C-alpha cells in the first residue's frame, strides 16, 4: 500500500507513518517544516530498515496553495497513492479562543475549511479511481461541550463532511475513515489534565491502521471513548449545562 501522511512529523501522524513503513507500506510525508520532515523521514528509514529513502514535501493546512504541489509530489514519488491520512490540525483551549478572535478564525479555517479543501483536492487529483481517505476529526465533534465549543464545532463540521463523502462515493471506490480520538497524550494536549482513559499516540495509530485496512467509516480511539461518547450524546441538556465535561 502507498500512503501519504499529512502531519507526519508529530504525534499520531508520526506513529502512523512509522507503523505503515514498518509493515512494508511505502510512505510519503507531508508537513510544514522541511527540516523536521527530513529528520522524521530518516527516523522512519532506520526503523523500517528501508533501503529506499522516504520522500517528503512541504504542505501547510494554513495555506491551500501548498496542497496542489504537495499532492503532485506525492503522486510522482509513489506513482500510485492508495491512502491519504490527515492528522494535521490546530488546537487551542476554549478560553484562549474566546479571548482572541483572530486565533479562532485561524483554528476554524485550518480545521474545517482548509481540511475540507485538502480532501477535495485529494479526491479530485488522486482518487479518481478510488482510494482511502482517513481524516482526524475528534470526540469533541460529537456534542457541543463547554471545554471544546469552537474546536468541537470545526471537528463536527469535518465529521459531517466525511460522512457525506462516504455516502456518495463509497460505491465508486472511495473509502472514507473518520477518526475520533479521545484524549491522547500528545504535544497538542500537553499541560491539560488527562482524564481517565487517556491514550498514547502509538495505541491510537494501531487502531487507525486497523480501521484503514478494514475501511471502517468511523473509528473511536482509545475504543472506550465510543462508550463514553454514547453516554455523553444521550445526556439531556439540563445535565450538559451543569457539568464541565
Amino acid at each position: 500500500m502507498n500512503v501519504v501522511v499529512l502531519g507526519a512529523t508529530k504525534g499520531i501522524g508520526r506513529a502512523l507513518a512509522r507503523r505503515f513503513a514498518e509493515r512494508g507500506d511505502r510512505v510519503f510525508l507531508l508537513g510544514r517544516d522541511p527540516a523536521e520532515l527530513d529528520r522524521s523521514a530518516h527516523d522512519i528509514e532506520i526503523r523500517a530498515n528501508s533501503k529506499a529513502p522516504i520522500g517528503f514535501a512541504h504542505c501547510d493546512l494554513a495555506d491551500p496553495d501548498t496542497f496542489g504541489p504537495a499532492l503532485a509530489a506525492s503522486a510522482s514519488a509513489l506513482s500510485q497513492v492508495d491512502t491519504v491520512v490527515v492528522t494535521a490540525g490546530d488546537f487551542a483551549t476554549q478560553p484562549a479562543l474566546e479571548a482572541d478572535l483572530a486565533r479562532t478564525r485561524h483554528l476554524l479555517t485550518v480545521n474545517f475549511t482548509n481540511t475540507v479543501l485538502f480532501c477535495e483536492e485529494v479526491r479530485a487529483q488522486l482518487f479518481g479511481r478510488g482510494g482511502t481517505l482517513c481524516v482526524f476529526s475528534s470526540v469533541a465533534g460529537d456534542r457541543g461541550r463547554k471545554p471544546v465549543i469552537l474546536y468541537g464545532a470545526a471537528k463536527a463540521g469535518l465529521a459531517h463532511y466525511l460522512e457525506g463523502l462516504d455516502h456518495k462515493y463509497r460505491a465508486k471506490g472511495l473509502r472514507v475513515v473518520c477518526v475520533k480520538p479521545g484524549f491522547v497524550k500528545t504535544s497538542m494536549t500537553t499541560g491539560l489534565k488527562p482524564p481517565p482513559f487517556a491514550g498514547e499516540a502509538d495505541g491510537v495509530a494501531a487502531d487507525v491502521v486497523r480501521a484503514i485496512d478494514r475501511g471502517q467509516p468511523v473509528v473511536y480511539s482509545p475504543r472506550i471513548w465510543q462508550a463514553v461518547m454514547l453516554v455523553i450524546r444521550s445526556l439531556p441538556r439540563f445535565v450538559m449545562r451543569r457539568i464541565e465535561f
Partner: protein
Amino acid sequence: MTEPQLSGWGRVPVPGQELRSEDLARLTSDAVLTRGLGRSYGDSSLPPASRPVVVATPLADRILSFDDATGVLRAEAGYSLESLYHDFLARGWFTPVTPGTQFVTLGGMVAADVHGKNHHVDGTIGRHVRSLRLRVASGAIVECSRTQEPDLFRATIGGMGLTGHILEVELQLVRVPSPWIWGEMMRVANIDEYLDALKASAAHWPFTMGWIDCLSTGPAMGRGVLQRGRWATPAEAPREFPRALIRVPVPVVCPSWVMGHTVGKIFNEGYYRWNRTTPARVVHPAKFFYPLDALVHWNRLYGRRGFTQYQCVLPEAAGRAAVKQLLELLTQQGAASFLCVIKDCGEQGEGLLSFPLTGTSIALDLPVRDNTQSVVDRLNEFVISQGGRIYLAKDSFTRAEHFRAMEPRLDEWLAIRRKWDPTGKLRSAQSVRLFGDPA
C-alpha cells in the same frame, strides 16, 4: 480544581506537572528539569517547589542515525528501550547495558548511569555512550564526549539531569548472536552460599543477579534464587523471534497489607519453593531482563502512601560480613522487604556521580511508613561506615550530610556543575534535598 501532582515510580507525589513535546529544544529553553518516562523511584525527576514544571522527553523519540556496520546509534533523548528492543533486537543489535525495565528513555538511562545484570563485565551505560547533546543552563546547546568538553561529559553521566537537558544520545550498540537468552536458575540455601554462587558465576556468565528472601532468618537467612545467563548461540536459539509477552495491569491502588509482612512471607516462601535449580535452557529475553514489566503499574501494589527503593552498594573490601550485617539490620528495623535483589558490581565508571563500585549491590523495596525516614537513616549510617553508597535514581529519603559522607567525588561534580550553571538554574526536588539548591 485540584493542584496537579507528579511522582516518581514510588508514587510519592509533589505538586508538579509534565510538559511534553516533540520539540525538546523549544521546551527546554527555560525549563529547570527534564525527565524521561518517570521510572526513577524517588524525587530525581520531580521539580523543585517554586518551579513545578518538568519537561518530559518521551515524544522526542526519533532515531537520528544508525550505522549497520559499527552499531553506533544516535537518537533523541526520549527514544525508549522498549523501542530499541523492537527496532534492533531482530536485526542482531541490542543495548550493551539494560536496567530491569524497558520503560526507560536513553536520556534517563544516561542521567542515572544505569547498570544491569552484566555490570561486572560491561560496566554502566555510560561506558558505551559516545557523545551527548545538551542544552546547558545558559541556553546554549553543547555537544560533549570524552574529547569534547570531557568534564561536562563525565558530570552528565549519572548527573541526574542536573548539568544540562539531555537532547540527544549517541550509543554504541552490541552485536548479539541471537535474540534469545541461554540461562539457568540456581536455588541457594542461605546468604553465604548465595554470595559464593554469585562470585563463581561472574567468572563465566555475563548476566548474573538474583533474588533473596530477606524475611527468612537464622540459618536460612538470605536463601534465594540466583539467575545467570548469556546470549544464546544461533544453534541453541529457536528460529523464530521471541513473541511479544502479554502484559497485565494492576488496575487499582492496593491496600497497604498487600505488600505487608504476612503476604511477603507467603510470597517469599512460595517463590523460593517454586524456583528450583534448573539446567541451562533457552529463556525469553524480555522475561529474563524485564520480568516486572509484565505487570503494568506494579507500583500500585504498594498502596496509597507509595514506596521507596533502598539500593546501596557495599565495597568488596567490606566483605560479606557487611552484607550479612545489612540484612540483620533490616530485620531489626522491621524493614525486611518483599523483594530484595543482590548483584555484584564491577569497577566504578567514569561518571562522577555514577552509582556502582566494585562490591555487592543490594536493592529492596520499602513501603512508605511512618518510620521510613529513620530506617533509611540507620541503613545509610551503616553503609557510610562500610564505605558504600546509595543509588540516586532510587532515593527520596537520604539526608544531605549522609550523601556527602558517601560521595568523595561530590565536590568535583559540584564544581563542574557550577561552571556550567553558575546561578543554579537546573535543579530537581532531589537536588534541593541533597545539594542545597534553592527550592
